[in-house]
């Protein structure tokens, strides 16, 4: 890094793609363009000339204006003050930008991500002694970033040596020195509460670990049917209107992660405002604190410059990895990776690169894979475990899952929550289709469920899916020849499947009681619906007509149970299950009596 910035000249402006004359600039280097100082990134070099993609609109820039190489690649600031914030695609704080430039985003602004004036209460790590050998990832001390996030100040990657001194407990701004380290060559390094990291390079860790525990999202169709692990990677594809955003927001709200990073990548402005306005009011069911205290937003809405949209995913991931390195379980939601891919396509198109599928460049699949591979559960340098769970929304054109972004994503991820237009049209939400969705984590999740909730979890889950599959088959028959052609047992199967759909799978994000469902309640509801089905089937085998069972008022109540009892009232659900059992027993006895007469 040099203090002497190299300067050159703008040659050609083609939308966000600017060609400059600047010998010696490196690929990936940050460049300031023109008199207003738009920031961009070098994406290709050819002789003296470099092609730059700019993160801001280029209106008003003229050939002949200056261009300046900044000497470093696109990097983010990592330190206390990120939580609860909203940043744009290149980590500029949007609330500060609003103070400077009003309701609309002005161009050429240079606002650092972290507040330079704010003082943080630093508490040094008591185990550290001057003279000790330290290395990357070691904890220098902690800062209470929010009530729920204790921010560990780590030795940045690449720094190792003898600890000369650590600052005593006290209030520091992020630029104050909190430690000095002398490396093997004898050079002393000054460490502060923050450091910078280039976003396109994954942060180092010791080794990868297997995922062990499920990410509990409080959503029944996810946790019970298609579970995700902490450190896993998943995708939510669906046509518009199928509810991708609601699924993503529900995960952001209710998952049992320590940190949530929500990247609005080329999506609607109002959706981010929804998160911004609701999260400070919503309570985290695990910590009891406000959700915003553990949430960070990256917002590059669809009308913001397309190149910054491409960067936003990497910016989000780097911050996720930073909190992972502190030993936290981080969930990052990217809504939507299709918009990211389109940004890639737009830039490649402007560069005249050969398109392969639907205009996308040939490197789409490898870039996508590289992004998802940054998720995972790892052993950190601080010797603890941390994880990044990455869940990407995919917006396939026309809802066609065979298009390039969806199909490449499907090859990489482990959990696939396919949203269905048909379910959404019938207002069956979440519209996660149980036929096309899959999870590669069922067995690992089962170990957790069996230990913590109930030993019959995997068996019950399989039974429910089998019943739903049977329902699909029978529905086809009904559509051809009508319900009269079915036997009583078959009609009861349809009733049972309907009960599972309404009583378990459907879950309204707007229902104050049902929006979050604890694992215990999830299993209680599943077990309730399946027992009704099992008991009813036993009666039908005895000869009780299906019409008598279908009209039982308990069936309607079983469908409503999810919104009648909250997650702490699982015992009420058990009590109701026993009452239903007695009702069935009553029918059985009566029937036996009638037939004995």
């Amino acid at each position: 890094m040099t203090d002497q910035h190299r300067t050159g000249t703008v040659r050609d402006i083609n939308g966000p793609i600017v060609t400059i004359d600047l010998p010696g600039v490196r690929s990936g280097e940050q460049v300031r363009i023109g008199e207003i100082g738009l920031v961009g990134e070098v994406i290709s070099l050819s002789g003296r000339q470099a092609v730059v993609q700019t993160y801001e609109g280029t209106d008003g820039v003229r050939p002949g204006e200056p261009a300046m190489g900044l000497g470093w690649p696109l990097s983010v600031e990592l330190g206390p003050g990120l939580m609860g914030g909203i940043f744009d695609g290149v980590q500029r704080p949007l609330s500060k930008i609003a103070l400077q430039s009003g309701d609309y985003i002005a161009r050429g602004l240079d606002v650092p991500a972290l507040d330079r004036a704010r003082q943080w209460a630093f508490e040094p790590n008591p185990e550290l002694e001057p003279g000790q050998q330290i290395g990357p990832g070691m904890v220098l001390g902690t800062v209470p970033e929010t009530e729920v996030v204790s921010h560990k100040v780590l030795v940045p990657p690449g720094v190792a040596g003898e600890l000369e001194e650590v600052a005593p407990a006290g209030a520091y701004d992020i630029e104050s020195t909190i430690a000095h380290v002398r490396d093997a060559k004898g050079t002393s390094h000054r460490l502060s509460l923050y450091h910078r990291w280039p976003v396109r390079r994954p942060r180092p860790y010791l080794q990868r670990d297997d995922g062990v525990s499920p990410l509990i999202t409080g959503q029944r169709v996810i946790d019970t049917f298609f579970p995700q692990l902490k450190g896993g990677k998943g995708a939510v594809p669906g046509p518009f209107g199928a509810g991708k955003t609601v699924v993503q927001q529900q995960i952001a709200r209710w998952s049992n992660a320590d940190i949530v990073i929500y990247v609005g990548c080329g999506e609607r402005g109002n959706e981010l405002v929804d998160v911004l306005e609701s999260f400070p009011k919503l309570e985290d069911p695990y910590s009891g604190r406000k959700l915003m205290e553990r949430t960070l937003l990256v917002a590059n809405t669809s009308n913001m410059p397309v190149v910054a949209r491409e960067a936003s995913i990497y910016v989000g991931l780097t911050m996720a990895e930073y909190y992972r390195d502190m030993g936290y379980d981080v969930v990052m939601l990217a809504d939507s990776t299709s918009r990211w891919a389109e940004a890639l396509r737009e830039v490649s198109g402007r560069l005249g690169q050969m398109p392969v599928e639907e205009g996308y460049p040939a490197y789409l699949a490898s870039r996508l894979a590289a992004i998802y591979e940054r998720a995972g559960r790892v052993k950190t340098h601080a010797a603890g475990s941390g994880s990044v769970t990455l869940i990407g929304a995919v917006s396939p054109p026309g809802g066609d899952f065979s298009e390039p972004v969806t199909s490449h994503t499907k090859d990489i991820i482990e959990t696939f929550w396919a949203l269905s237009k048909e379910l959404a049209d019938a207002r069956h939400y979440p519209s996660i289709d149980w036929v096309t969705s899959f999870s590669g984590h069922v067995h690992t999740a089962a170990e957790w469920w069996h230990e913590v909730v109930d030993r019959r979890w995997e068996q019950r889950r399989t039974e429910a899916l089998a019943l739903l599959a049977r329902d699909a088959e029978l529905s086809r028959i009904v559509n051809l020849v009508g319900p009269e052609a079915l036997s009583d047992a078959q009609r009861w199967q349809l009733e049972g499947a309907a009960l599972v759909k309404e009583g378990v799978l459907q879950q309204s994000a707007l229902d104050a009681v049902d929006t979050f469902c604890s694992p215990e309640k999830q299993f209680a509801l599943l077990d309730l619906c399946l027992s009704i089905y099992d008991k009813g089937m036993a009666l039908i085998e005895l000869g009780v007509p299906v019409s008598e069972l279908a009209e039982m008022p308990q069936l309607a109540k079983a469908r409503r149970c999810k919104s009648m009892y909250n997650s702490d009232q699982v015992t009420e659900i058990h009590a109701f299950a026993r009452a239903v059992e007695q009702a069935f027993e009553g029918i059985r006895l009566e029937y036996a009596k009638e037939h004995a007469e």
Partner: protein
Amino acid sequence: MSIKEYRTASRAHGGLIAVQHTPGVAFGDRVRITDARGGTRDGQVIRAADEEVLILVFEGIEDLDLEDIWVRFLDEPVEIALSPEILGRELNGLGEPRDGRPPVLSNVRRPVGGAAINPAARTYPREFIQTGISTIDGLNSLVRGQKLPIFSGSGLPHNRLAAQIVRQAKLKDEDTSFSIVFAAMGVSYADAKFFRDEFANSGVLRNVVMFVNLADDPPVERLTLPRTALTAAEYLAYDLDRHVLVVMTDMTYYAEALREVATAKGDVPARKGYPGYLYSDLAEIYERCGRIHERHGSITMMPVVSMPSDDITHPIPDLTGYITEGQIVLSRELQNQGIYPPVHISPSLSRLMKDGIGRDDTREDHPHVAAQLYALYARALETRNLASIIGADELSERDRRYLTFADDFDKRFVGQDEAEDRSIDATLNLAWELMSAFPREMLTRLSETELAKYYRTAESQ
């Protein structure tokens, strides 16, 4: 930079001309082109390099003799003059008069390109707008600051529906009407006249500014027209504190003009020949609507998108649906049954409905009523399909009830007169009347309290 005129135009195709050796021309600048007969055309720089600049000519390049034109770079972006006087006017895509009256004079000039609203400055839209149309108010409610397009097809009454909404839209219990910005892109003379007459007859003309580019006007001008119209809308909303309803018709013709120019520029096509940036381009337009902190005005948007061959997966409705906050879908089937407005509720959706309805906004039973109606109608449509295969006589008692419900729903709830302005209470009461054809225990989406209060038994009706 001093203003110079150049005679170095070298190439012209597809609405674009290239001019050589024009040092220091800025990207995005406005250009004026004068031909030998003294006629002028407007343009904008869309690529600026040392050797050559590329200019998009809004009026098109028909009849231009490259040897004999003067190209002048005005050193300013494309702007529009704004004053309260624009209300009642009819302008073109560049903000110039189309109504034979003098140009709008004002010191307030704004670039039409606009800038992105800072998400941190937005306020979440949540004020219910009553349109008086049951399928919208009851099931796909519109709120102030929302963008809710009408997905239609050729021959469907989207214009009549849009006009009815313009006539009837108001906040519940409030009588403030909207200022209307009407943007017509590539529509026929008859359609433009329909709206002009509508506005005049319903007495709202004083409150309307029309931006019109007809089907036989130069298509390139269509590219600036929605931006010009939205710049005017932003002025009305944020400078004059008005609530603005923007009606844009037809976004499909806009996108086709974009494709025409993109092809001429040699952009790599993505789907159906549309450029890869169609999504970003549409978003730049749609996302200009919304609510902003501490601003009194608002911009609500109702674009009309005609689906080519009624195909909702066509890139234009598809990308629109990914940007807008829902969609109102019109159906040819309902139209053929003589039902107006032919709103097909299954694919229709309002994403912002959840925060604009309920106890404090409309009525406490509204959310559950909407969910229950959707569930019943979905099942009823299945039954209707079944009946068409096996015959209605073969259906069970319960299924026949669904069949009757489907017919009643289409005729009474969906269907209403063009002049009928139903209050939200009337809409919800009608919903209860239709739902009460089912036994209580089948209405599982409604709570016991709601059932106790609103459910009507056969005797009580």
